[in-house]
Structure formats: structure tokens, C-alpha cells
């Protein structure tokens, strides 16, 4: 699943981690790396185990088996306080009885650094996160976004091996969320500290992550760049979780695949046995609808079908088409250029063509 990386670039390395709470297995067979300066985002539904991964890296939980390495050092048996990670909790966990300056300086204070050093570091960080006016304020006097910045500055003060963000945008308003997301990403790229985020929000994952890891019920289904995950999902869950997907069942036939009486030829060899059950996965925006006679060679013909419903969604048009073959209904998204050139309405008979698609082994068969 992982590309080989130059060892000196690897900041975090997690191997074969497994964790159960009582009888429930929360994580299984977890393997991943985070490179220097990289932002890795764990995306999954609640209960998928993503918080547990974060806590295991931080040292707040001990895995049943497996290892954690930070910059080449095995920290699996080290307690949290000896690992040097910086955690930004969901609630930020700022110390309520300390003001901004003292919160930020805490990490250095307990390492008994000299006052002058602490002051310079704190000053620099306050400037970095832009909280100069608020330095004497207490957490209760700060807004959510400001508190988050303090939490980040606090974690950075002692030069952590990695930053761990636990759903940091959950408590914020939608508008602030987008704005902050970009700010944080810019900041992280500037200071080049490797970071791990966990979230259930796909948009967040896509925007923040250099790479995304999809978690499903304690297992890592796929790790890759946003482009890879989106356009080349390796499992049905990944395909459905990020963006919307149309999924049709079929069979492998030699180099091609068949759905009912339709044949399609994938661009890359699918490597599956003849007759093996497969799932055909394609995104709504990768389907083009034409009157049967207008289909060109750019796309492969999928099937004929009847339009069930057309809905206007602002920047695009959503069309539900019931295919003749297999009686399945697929969702299609058409941009303005399409709707202008080829207007369609419910009840019309059309041909659906695919620009791209993925063939996945059907694991449920």
C-alpha cells in the first residue's frame, strides 16, 4: 500500500498496530508513514477508530501489538510525556487558569528553560499565529478560532516531532471552518512540522491533506493523495465515502468486463480471473448522456436508459437515469456546458457513456 520513502524523510512510522477495548477490536493491521513536512489526514466515520490511532501515536493509549517510531526512534513503550508530540485536542484543552502567554510557554517552563528563552519563543509564536493583542487574555475570553491558535502555538513551543490534530474544526462555525482550514494549512507548510489530522469531513480531508487515509471500522482501506483516492478508489467503501459513486455489479470476461449484455474495455488490465464477480465504479461527473445517435468515440458506451428525474443544482444539473440493463438507477452530474449543448428532460431515452471508471473485485460475492 505504501511507496518506499527515503528513511531520513520519515517522521512518523506506524507498523502492524492492533488495539482492542475489551472484546471489541477497534484497530487492526494499521500501517502508515508520515514524511517530514507532510500533512496526513485520517478520514472515517465516527467509531472507525481514527481517534484511537491519534492517541496511540501520542502515547495516550498503548496498542496491543505493533510499533510506533518517531524520527527513527521506537517510542512504543514510552509514556506520552517522553514522546515529544504536540496534540491539539478537540476541545483545545487550554489551561483555564493561565493566560495565553503562560499556556504557550508551559511546555518550555516544565522543561526548565531559562526565562529569556521562554520569552523569545513565546513572543515568536504569538506573532506567528497572530495573537499579539490577546497575549494577556484567558482562554474563556477568546473565540474558538483564537483558542485553536493558542493550542497550536502551545504545541509548537517545544519543537514537537509531530503535530496531532483531533477534529480541530468540529466546534467552529461553517464559514470560519473553511477560512481557518486554509490558514492552518498555510501555517503548517510554512513551519514544515509533520502533522496528522483526523476528521469525518470529506471536504476538509481533500483540502487539508497531502495524503488521505481512509479508515473503515478499524481497518485502513486506502492511503493516497486526494487525487488518487478520489479517482482511483480501491474499495467500494472508499469510493462511496469520498464523493458520490455509482456502483454496478458485473463479471470479468477475459480482458473486458460485462454488465448484463454490455461489454466495457478498461484502459488498464484489471488482472482478474475470467468470470470473477466485479463491481464497476464511476463518478456522476464521469458519465455523459447523449441521444443514442450522438454518442462519440471519446467515451465508451455503457448502456441505454431512461431519464427519471432532472434537478437543477445551481452550478450543475443532476440527472437520475434508469438503465435498461440491470434496471439500476445511476446518478449523473452535468455541467452548464453540457446542459446548454444537449438539454434533456425526464422521460427521454438516452445513452450513457463513461469517460472513466474503475473495476474492483467484488468482495461480497
Amino acid at each position, binding site marked *: 500500500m505504501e511507496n518506499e520513502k527515503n528513511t531520513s524523510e520519515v517522521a512518523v512510522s506506524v507498523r502492524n498496530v492492533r488495539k482492542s477495548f475489551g472484546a471489541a477490536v477497534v484497530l487492526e493491521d494499521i500501517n502508515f508513514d508520515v514524511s517530514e513536512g507532510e500533512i496526513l489526514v485520517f478520514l472515517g466515520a465516527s467509531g472507525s477508530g481514527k481517534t484511537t490511532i491519534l492517541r496511540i501515536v501520542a502515547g495516550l493509549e498503548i496498542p496491543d501489538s505493533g510499533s510506533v517510531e518517531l524520527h527513527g526512534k521506537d517510542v512504543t513503550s514510552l*509514556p*506520552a*510525556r517522553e514522546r515529544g508530540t504536540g496534540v491539539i485536542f478537540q*476541545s483545545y484543552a487550554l*489551561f*483555564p487558569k493561565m493566560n495565553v502567554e503562560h499556556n504557550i510557554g508551559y511546555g518550555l517552563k*516544565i522543561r526548565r528553560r531559562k526565562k529569556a528563552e521562554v520569552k523569545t519563543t513565546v513572543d515568536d509564536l504569538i506573532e506567528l499565529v497572530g495573537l499579539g493583542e490577546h497575549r494577556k487574555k484567558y482562554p474563556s475570553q477568546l473565540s474558538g478560532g483564537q483558542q485553536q491558535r493558542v493550542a497550536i502555538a502551545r504545541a509548537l513551543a517545544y519543537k514537537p516531532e509531530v503535530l496531532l490534530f483531533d477534529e480541530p474544526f468540529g466546534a467552529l462555525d461553517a464559514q470560519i471552518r473553511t477560512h481557518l482550514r486554509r490558514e492552518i494549512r498555510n501555517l503548517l507548510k510554512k513551519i514544515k512540522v509533520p502533522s496528522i489530522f483526523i476528521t469525518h469531513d470529506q471536504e476538509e480531508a481533500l483540502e487539508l491533506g497531502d495524503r488521505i487515509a481512509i479508515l473503515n471500522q478499524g481497518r485502513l482501506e486506502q492511503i493516497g493523495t486526494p487525487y488518487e483516492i478520489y479517482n482511483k478508489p480501491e474499495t467500494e467503501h472508499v469510493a462511496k465515502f469520498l464523493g458520490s459513486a455509482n456502483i454496478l455489479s458485473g463479471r470479468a470476461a477475459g480482458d473486458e468486463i460485462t454488465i448484463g449484455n454490455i461489454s466495457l474495455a478498461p484502459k488498464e488490465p484489471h488482472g482478474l480471473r475470467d468470470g470473477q464477480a466485479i463491481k464497476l465504479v464511476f463518478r456522476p461527473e464521469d458519465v455523459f448522456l447523449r441521444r443514442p445517435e450522438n454518442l462519440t468515440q471519446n467515451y465508451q458506451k455503457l448502456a441505454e436508459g431512461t431519464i427519471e428525474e432532472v434537478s437543477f443544482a445551481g452550478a450543475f444539473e443532476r440527472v437520475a437515469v434508469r438503465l435498461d440493463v440491470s434496471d439500476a438507477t445511476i446518478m449523473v452530474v452535468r455541467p452548464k456546458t453540457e446542459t446548454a449543448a444537449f438539454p434533456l428532460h425526464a422521460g427521454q431515452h438516452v445513452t450513457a457513456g463513461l469517460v472513466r471508471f474503475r473495476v474492483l473485485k467484488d468482495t461480497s460475492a
Partner: protein
Amino acid sequence: MSTNLSNIRHVRGFDLVKPLSITAMVVVMLPLVLLPMASIFIFGTSSGLGSFWAALTAPEAIFALKLSIVTSFWATVFNVIFGLFAAYVLSKYNFWGRNALIVIISLPTAIPTAVAGFALLLLWGPYGILGRYLEPQGIHIMFTASAIILANIFVTFPLAFGVIKPVFETMSNSLEEASATMGATRWQTFWHVTLPSLRGAIVSGALLTFARAVGEFGSTILVSGNLAQRTQTAPLYIFAKFNEGQVEAANAIAIVLVVFSFLIFSILFLARDWLEAE
């Protein structure tokens, strides 16, 4: 009459219930609490300020007050520190017998103070279960100031604990986890993160314990030996004066204790507000 009342009720902003309930509250408090306290003041000064002052400055009285303050002080120090420690351990760790321990810690308040004093005598007295081995070594625990401190510790045992523990329970775990991930040892986390959040509860607990210890009587009279100017606390002194028939002198010291407690509780409320505010 009723027409007037209902007319008043319709006047905007007039709420009959508020002045009525406040008056009712004060009226109930009058015979139960306010008048008895007032009568202490009246009776204590009834022979004039001269004898009031003489009663206050009697060497036995001054000794008794000092002894009460000092023994209560040390009992408070111990119970606050232990209460803090016990609240920490009991809210952090789960173990077999945990709930039983919590109940046991709270028991001393249910035990009549005389029984508590008697139990201490049976244990530590010169003929007591353990005391009889200490006596030949020259270690006298009962009938000394230490006995008073021990009795005070027993009787006020759960007070500070009871005030501090709920604060632990409502404290969020993530603060301590944050401190740990930032590199702090358990002690550093306790000192810099946990303790400051407990300041208000510690002060409350300390003053509650202290005020209760100063007024303790039932156990003290048994374990102290009531030796004037040696082991006689203020409440014991008041009782002795009463038994001798010197009721005004008894009341004079009682006035001191009441005023002292009033001051303590006023400070308590002020300090707690100030501490919680930050």
C-alpha cells in the same frame, strides 16, 4: 380588601410573592437561628462591658481560644492535604473496594462525637488496645493537645474531601492529557494544571473544616482531660464556666467564637468568588 389586592396585582411590575417569601424566610429564621444568636450577644454583655472584657482577658479564656485555634489549624492542614490526595486517587483509579472506601471516608460525620472520642480513648488511652503498649515507652497520646488534634481530624475527616472530590469529577481529562503530551510529569501536571482548578474548593474545604473543628465539643471533652490552661479548648471552657454558674463569662467567649466564625465564613465567600473568577 380583596379587591384592593387584585388591583395591586394588576399594577405592572408588582410581584407580591417576592416580598412575601423573603419575609417568610426571615420570620422562620427568627426563633430558630437569629434570636438565639442575638441572645448570646445580649447575655454575654449584660453585666456591662467591664466584666465582658474581664471575661475575655482571663488567662484561662485566652489560653482556651489559642488552643482551639492551633489544634483546629493542624487538623485542617492534615485533612485538606489528605482530602486532596484521597479525592485524586479515588477519582483517577478504579479498584476493588473503591466505593466502600468512599463511604468509609464519609462515615465520621454520622458518628456521634462522644462515641468518636470514646473510641479514640479505647484505642489510644493508657489502658487502650494500642495505648497500653505506648504508655510504658512514655508516649502519651490521650489527654494532651495531640489528642485534641486527633479527635478533630476524625470528626472533620470528610469535610474537605467532600468539597474537593466533586471538582475532580467535573474536571475534564483532556487538560491532564494535554499536560502529559507536552512533557509534564505527573507531579508537574498536578501542581500546574490540576491544583489551580481546585483552589476554590481547597479554600472552601479548609475553612469549613476549621470552623467545624473550632466548635468541636463532644469528642474533645473525653480525650483532652479538660485540664485548664493545658488541654482546655474554647468550647470546653464555655461549658466549664456554665457548670460553675458563670454564665456571662461563658457567653462572652461564645461571642468571640460566633464573631470568629462569622469572619471566617465571610472570608470564605469572598475568597472563593475571587478565586473562581479568574
